[in-house]
């Protein structure tokens, strides 16, 4: 604070969580800025829920400290933490009316009767469900119940909003709509939010920051664009989007570019973002969408672009786009997703493939 930096809202310092022999969270250091929406992203069982529950106080860290607004909360009991939690199954009280559900947290916060009424009405308006006060939760649809769960969590004006895969029980269309609504609501209220998901689209579209986890440990943290375009390692690149991994060796470096000789003998150029020297074994990551495929006849590579020849081995049509598997040499194929700016190529057809060095991202070979 004296440094002029804003105090992070939530801080994890050296968090470990073990269940018997299972390590659910490992050596977690992570800060969450006030007012931001952070997603915890990772495959099933990587410890997202556990990390979230430790913030709520529903699990205790085996080691390490958690701070909220600079104060260590490890020993603060659950009911004194002032957090809003939204559960995957909504967890509305089935025996209470919607009003009593939403008013629940206020009842334990010495708020006057009139104020409770006022706040509940406002919260229901905010989630766009005014007038359902007297209904029971079972009389609402899944999406509506989800909204009530949100109203119930935000009405207490929590320091941090915790959501554990809140949208996964909804069907595809509703999910998209609710995602936007969560996003809008979060921005409107400016409440610090931790959002757990294993859906990368959810994470990429709504977060200020993504924390990618694997087997309990942090793989990368950063802005969605950074995490997507500059994955820190093989796992992150593989988990987010469709990636091609091409192994090779650095054979030349200049100020702008790194030249890599890949397995097939082709020489590709990647943008120099630093951190490599000649002779390093590297892995080049190229998103499937970054390749452009052209007819082989009459194709001349653009200046400064990487290009190579291949043959369409397999393709699948996915509506707006086509997914191709293109055989380069022996034993090497790449995955290309094309937006169909040209015609659809046939299986067996010879094509030329081109990609800009800018879209070739290098990581050390693991």
């Amino acid at each position, binding site marked *: 604070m004296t440094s002029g930096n804003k105090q992070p809202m939530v801080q994890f310092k050296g968090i470990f969580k073990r269940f018997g022999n299972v390590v659910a969270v490992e050596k977690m250091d992570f800060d969450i800025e006030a007012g931001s929406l952070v997603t915890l992203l990772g495959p099933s069982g990587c410890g997202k829920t556990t990390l979230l529950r430790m913030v*709520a106080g529903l699990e205790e860290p085996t080691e390490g400290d958690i701070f909220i607004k600079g104060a260590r909360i490890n020993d603060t009991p*659950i009911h004194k933490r002032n957090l809003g939690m939204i559960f995957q199954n909504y967890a509305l009280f089935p025996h209470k009316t919607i009003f009593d559900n939403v008013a629940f947290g206020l009842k334990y916060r010495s708020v006057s009767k009139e104020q409770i009424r006022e706040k509940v009405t406002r919260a229901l308006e905010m989630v766009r469900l005014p007038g359902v006060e007297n209904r029971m939760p079972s009389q609402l649809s899944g999406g509506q119940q989800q909204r009530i769960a949100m109203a119930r969590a935000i009405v207490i004006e929590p320091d941090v909003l915790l959501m554990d895969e809140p949208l996964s029980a909804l069907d595809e269309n509703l999910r998209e709509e609710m995602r936007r609504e969560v996003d809008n609501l979060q921005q409107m209220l400016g409440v610090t939010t931790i959002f757990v998901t294993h859906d990368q689209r959810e994470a990429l579209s709504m977060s200020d920051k993504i924390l990618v986890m694997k087997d309990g440990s942090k793989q990368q943290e950063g802005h969605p664009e950074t995490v997507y375009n500059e994955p820190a390692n093989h796992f992150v690149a593989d988990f987010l989007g469709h990636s091609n991994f091409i192994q090779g060796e650095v054979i030349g470096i200049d100020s702008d570019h790194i030249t890599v000789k890949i397995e097939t003998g082709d020489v590709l150029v990647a943008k120099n973002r630093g951190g490599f020297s000649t002779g390093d074994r590297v892995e080049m990551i190229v998103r499937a969408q970054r390749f452009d495929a052209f007819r082989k006849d009459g194709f001349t590579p653009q200046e400064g672009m990487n290009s190579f020849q291949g043959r369409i081995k397999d393709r699948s049509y996915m509506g707006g786009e086509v997914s191709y598997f293109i055989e380069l040499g022996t034993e090497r194929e790449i995955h290309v997703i094309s937006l169909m700016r040209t015609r659809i190529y046939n299986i067996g057809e010879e094509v030329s493939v081109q990609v800009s060095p800018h879209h070739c991202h290098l990581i050390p070979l693991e």
Partner: protein
Amino acid sequence: MKSGNWKPWALLAPSLSAVFFLLVIPVCFIVVYSFWLRAPSGADIPAFQFGNYAKFFEDFFYPKILIRTIRISFETVIVCVIMGYIPAYYFYRSQSRYKKAFLLLIMLPFWVSFIIRTMSWINIMGDTGLINHFLLKIGLIQSPISMLYNEFTVLMGLIMYLLPFMVLNIYVSLEGIDKSLLEAARCMGCTEWQAFREVTLPLSLPGVSAGCLLVFVLTAGTYLPPMILGGPSNDMIANLIFKRVIGTLDWPFGSAISVILLSLLFVIVWTYNRYLGINQIFKSFQGN
């Protein structure tokens, strides 16, 4: 279309005929019998008259036993709820690996004959039983205290018999409560006790009331604990039936009392179903 309809009936036929021949028919017999006359010679004479029912309500002797039955049933229910909720809640909260084994222990008494379990109290509380023997031995008393054959011991026998039903009913409805509801309550500012009051207790009430109904009905129809552990003044309605039918072979009057008991229980079950729904009881037998 039509040909598919007989299948469920065919599959149900064995159980339906069992219910019909073993339950419906005997009950019909009892109802018919209750209108018959009993000759002074002891012979049963087919008739249609309400004399047996009139006899029941003639003076206060029989209704008193009916009222006592209802009172003891209520007492049993109340004690079972209090004594049953605690272990049920304990099992529900337990993280132990042996939870399932403990639950099995609750069923254990059912493996021993009800009569033997009831009789065993005599060995414990009788004049020459364990407690008196011990007290005499350490010189605390000079002659045995008589503890048996009163309403307290009858109640004890009933509770011992019925407590498992209550525990299981409550346990099943507790297990059915989504744990995230409790967590949600805690996150919103409830202490553990407040969360119990707000969430666990109200959501376990269906199991409690199902247990209550079951215990009530079973108590009202049982005759062994009063017979073995009670004195003459502790008789319940089922003892009366037993004595009339087996003791004095007065089938018509015994049947009339049975019909009265049956009607009483029917009214209770019907009222329960009307306001609370009977389905809950079946849930507890389906396990979780």
